[in-house]
């Protein structure tokens, strides 16, 4: 099948845009739930380096993300979602 180069790049741009939007949405939620400025939420941010990310706030985070993205995580996903990067990948995986 022949895919016109213009179609491919438009699709790529759209995907990158959607990914950016998702990332910003997630960062905003985390900033609000953890009561931290968005600048402090980095790719590898985890409960180890963010003090307010305790088990209670982890639960609030999971529930807030489910509410905003209209998703439902399963047990395994919940306990593994322990960094910004992993959470983002998990969300992307579920939305596909």
């Amino acid at each position: 099948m022949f895919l016109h180069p213009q179609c491919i790049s438009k699709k790529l741009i759209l995907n990158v845009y959607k990914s950016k939007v998702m990332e910003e949405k997630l960062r905003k939620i985390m900033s609000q739930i953890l009561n931290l400025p968005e600048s402090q939420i980095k790719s590898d941010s985890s409960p180890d380096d963010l003090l307010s990310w305790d088990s209670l706030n982890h639960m609030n985070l999971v529930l807030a993300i489910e509410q905003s993205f209209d998703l439902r995580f399963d047990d395994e996903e919940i306990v593994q979602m322990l960094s910004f990067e992993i959470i983002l990948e998990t969300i992307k995986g579920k939305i596909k």
Partner: protein
Amino acid sequence: MSHINNYTLAELQNYIDNANVSNSRDFNTVILRNITVEGITPYLRYLTIQMGFRPNIVFGGYDNVLQDALGADENLINQNTDCIMVFTRLETLSPKLANSFTQLDSEIIEQEKDLVKNYIVSTLKGIRNKTNALINWHAFELPVYPAFGVMDHTSSNMQVGTICELNDFLKSKLREFKNGFFIDINVSRSVVGYYKFYDTRYWHIGKAPYTLEAVKEIANENFKLFRALKGKNKKCLVLDCDNTLWGGIIGEDGLNGIKLGPNYPGSAFMEFQQEIVSLYHRGIIIALCSKNNEPDVWDVIENHPHMVLKRNHISITKINWEDKAINIKQIASTLNIGLDSIVFIDDNEFETHLVEEILPEVTTIHLPKGKSADYKDLLTSSGLFDNLAFTNEDKKRSEFYKDEITRKQLENEFGGDMESYYKSLNMIANIDRASNIVIPRIAQLTQKTNQFNLTTKRYTESDIAAFSKSKNSDIIYAELEDRFGNMGIVGCSIVNYSKDSAEIDTFLLSCRVIGRGLEKIMLNTCIELAKIRNIPIVKGSYLKTNKNSLVKDFYTKNDFRSELNEDEQEVNFSFETINNVSSSPMYFKEINIKCL
């Protein structure tokens, strides 16, 4: 006023973190629990801020309900506690009854029931030893799929019957220990829906059973009581007419064209009107505010065969072509109630937005067009009018306000000669010590009275009962009758005695009777009571709020001396009982002081 449903959890958290509550009073909530329920915190905080207070929420230890109630930690439950929310889920308190009921023989069932009942009583005793604060105890959840399946209800000894018995026991103990309320979480569950109520993952991960929807609903239910506790419950319902009380527009459709009757949508409007009449019988003042020709509206009310709301239910009307915000302000001032006591209902968004903008203290409810069948629930689900008690004064309230309007008209006729006017009222004042039967009304007065209130101390029924029982305190109340009717109990005073002084802790008068001189009679009585005990000084104080400036000079006007350190917010006064009091007003028909 933004509604809690408009926010996601993240947005709510953001709202709370940015809210300015530095000038608000604290509202101290303690949560005793045997589950993880910290998830309710943002909803409680939001509702506390909406209520005008600064939230201070403390959780007791996990599954430490009884220990916290009995324990010595003064930082948890103390005199400053406003309310205690108790969560005792059966899954933790009695796993046998909750999870393995079919294995139990009758002896074990009895043992488990007794365990739970003793737990309840001991916890209540422990709490009440420390505080008279409001206790909101959440019901035991009824299993949706009970142990014996569909036949479980056939015997009261099966699972559902057993849990119902525990709930009934809980209710009766809450009544007995006073100021305790049963929060029926089963009802909250039915509103949200069973499958949206529980988060089974988090029950296993962290013993947190409830979803965001669930804790939101539970928080809302609790706040119906907290608002009543703080006197924030609404007292007056102001209604539009067209497309609110009936379908259509009377001015255009005529008496036969409006929709009101046994067929839809008229039946939905009849149901809505019935709900309004039910509120009338709960002591809520009903008012109309409609852009119409007045005779047209009265034509419907008097002559339409399917009107449920009648003239006698309505205390005041503003039916004209003026601005509704101005009309509502006039309603508030005629009834002498705060704008924050009013709920305004209209089908027209222009009107509801206008009132929201100009009178933000008024709670507005917009009725969506074409959904008349939903109107009844919109009104009842809000719980805006919920109160902690239902007194005789509540029952007769609307009559009082109609009498009040007649009085105001009469006052105008006397054109300023107040003494002659008061004389014409044939007032009879009765002053007496509080007895059990008047305790709810007196507590209510302390919670609701804002203007003629010297110290604005809010008390619950158990607080008042404690003052009443004490040998070192007196509670006196004033009851007033005039030629238009009996107004019931309209004032009270709480005095605490020591060897050296009698301190007036509370002195207040309902706004309906300000200016008649009843306060003079009450104050003289307080002084006499101190004289009888040979107490040399009567002390009073004025604690300034933004609503009670009218009594700033009350004590001074009545020959009390003010103390020299005049702090703007609190001023102390004293009166030596060796002095004579100036006499009560002469225009009263009868003054009966039954406690001297």
